[in-house]
């Protein structure tokens, strides 16, 4: 009893209970996904009992494998297309917005700030339905399909690069650009030659986060897809998950997972490399925007 109370009072005792809870949580959170990924290599049709290893559902099966099923290929291509297009539009727009709001004081930029935060917390379904009603009720130069999907995704994701870049700008401060201007740079070239290079790590991080988030998006891309030809992977999973699918669906989901993880890993390495060069912190936390 004494030993127990001494253990309880010891201020340096290891937090074993919390460690166990954390490890338990990680198993609960990641194991199911790993099991689902493992069954994409199953030799049989079952997604619940293991029948040996094969690549059948990736390219072996002549009809139902990801490689040979046209609908799955279309979905995968559409996913990557949306990821690239959205990132290309969203990141420059977000960076310009962040720099602009950082330099502008007054009522308008404050309202824009609040709008940006509002777009970050608005339930995605609401934005998706609102945009669906816009596209179906107004005579716009585009209809449902890739253009609408990219517009919706950019709107939903715009806050990420803007927030990440603003957080970085706040730590940079105004001294450096003032020094550049004292030495004869114009305001624009001070931005371009002093501030922008310092923002590169934050820009890389936000591009990767936007891409990884877009290829996993479901709500916006589903409502704004016109027909089966613009339905990306997540919608394909939603449509077939409860309709007796084959492990090819797991294979499709696994490919998506690998794409996202690859993008994030490469982005993080680039971020670390760039951060080392300019002597910044380079933890996974700062990569994801921790200040």
């Amino acid at each position, binding site marked *: 009893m004494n030993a127990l109370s001494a253990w309880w009072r010891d201020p340096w005792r290891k937090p074993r209970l919390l460690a166990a*809870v954390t490890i338990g949580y*990680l198993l609960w959170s990641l194991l199911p996904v790993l099991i689902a990924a493992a069954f994409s290599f199953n030799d049989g049709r079952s997604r619940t009992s293991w029948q040996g290893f094969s690549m059948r559902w990736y390219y072996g099966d002549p009809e139902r494998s990801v490689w040979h099923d046209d609908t799955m290929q279309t979905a995968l291509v559409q996913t990557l297309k949306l990821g690239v297009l959205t990132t290309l539009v969203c990141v420059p727009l*977000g960076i310009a917005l962040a720099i*602009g709001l950082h330099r502008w004081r007054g009522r308008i930029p404050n309202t824009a700030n609040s709008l940006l*935060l509002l777009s970050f917390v608005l339930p995605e379904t609401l934005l998706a339905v609102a945009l669906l009603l816009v596209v179906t*009720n107004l005579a716009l130069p585009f209809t449902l399909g890739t253009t609408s999907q990219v517009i919706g995704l950019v709107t939903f994701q715009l806050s990420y690069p803007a927030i990440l870049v*603003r957080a970085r700008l706040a730590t940079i401060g105004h001294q450096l650009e003032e020094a550049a201007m004292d030495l004869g740079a114009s*305001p624009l070239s001070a931005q371009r030659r002093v501030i922008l290079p310092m923002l590169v790590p934050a820009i890389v991080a936000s591009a990767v986060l936007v891409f990884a988030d877009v290829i996993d998006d479901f709500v916006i891309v589903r409502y704004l897809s016109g027909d089966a030809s613009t339905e990306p992977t997540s919608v394909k999973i939603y449509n077939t998950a409860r309709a007796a699918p084959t492990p090819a669906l797991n294979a499709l989901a696994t490919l998506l997972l690998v794409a996202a993880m690859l993008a994030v890993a490469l982005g993080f390495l680039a971020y670390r490399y760039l951060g080392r060069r300019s002597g910044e912190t380079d933890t996974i936390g700062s990569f*994801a925007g921790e200040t």
Partner: protein
Amino acid sequence: MTLATLPSTEGPSGQPAPASRQPRGGRLLGPLLAMPGIVWLLLFFVAPLYVVLAVVFGGVDPIFRTVIPVWNPVLWSSDQPIYVLTHIVGDDGIFGPALLRTAVYVFTASVLCLFIAFPIAYYVARLSGRWKGLLLTLLIAPFWISYMMRMLAWVNLLANDGIVNRIISMGGLLPDDTEWLSGKSVVVILGLVYGYVPYMIIPLYAGLDRLPSELIEGARDLGANRFSAFWRVTWPMSRPVVIASVLLTCLPMLGDYFTSDLLSGSPSTSMVGNLINNTVLTPGQTGQAGAFVLLVLIVSLVPMLYYVRSVSRSDGAAI
């Protein structure tokens, strides 16, 4: 996901961020750079909300059953919202159960999320030592796994011949023919917890990581035991972050319909998101979907504004 969208933790040492002054020169550069983004937000974020109003308070074509949006607020008719409101309670209360269920599910799932997320975020942020980087990476990983894949994983596990039933039957505790995936509230709530708890852990982690540890150590030095140090120092300081993380989790849950669709697929577990999803593409019912959207928007407006206020107040310059 980003960790920069949090109110600062309130503590005696938390000094307000120095108000950054107007940078010198190029007064037009700021507005010029911000304009494209602001125009984008006005066109594709603010204007669509007005279109929702025009559809909700608009009419329905009597023959084609398509919606006729009415752009002039003077001509708005409230037939559709009144139809929805009168069908929530009473004899025709066809929408009531789903709305009540949404409240119960979202509340229960958020509370469970907090019970899971707080200890884990606290441990990883403050006590995990050299394992911190690895643990944080593993905690962030679910963000980059598609929500659909994470639900698909559970569809596989909970199938009638799935691993869950097989484990149960091996233990011999329960009959192994439980149909988990047909209309079980417990499964949907746990699915919501599974789906959304990472969105709570990460902001909580970022907030708890910033707590000044001197204050907690000081409390212990001055004689507080573990619990009172936690209750009187750590918890009050982390409250703004807890509220923000709960909001970041339960707001998206309010629009969720796919968790219920995938893990139950039965109307007995449908939430308000399902009502929106089922009506929005049905001819003649689009206005109802708009009314539900408006309802969720009104309910979530106060929490959203609270979040925006607490985040933009916490550091004047950064969002």
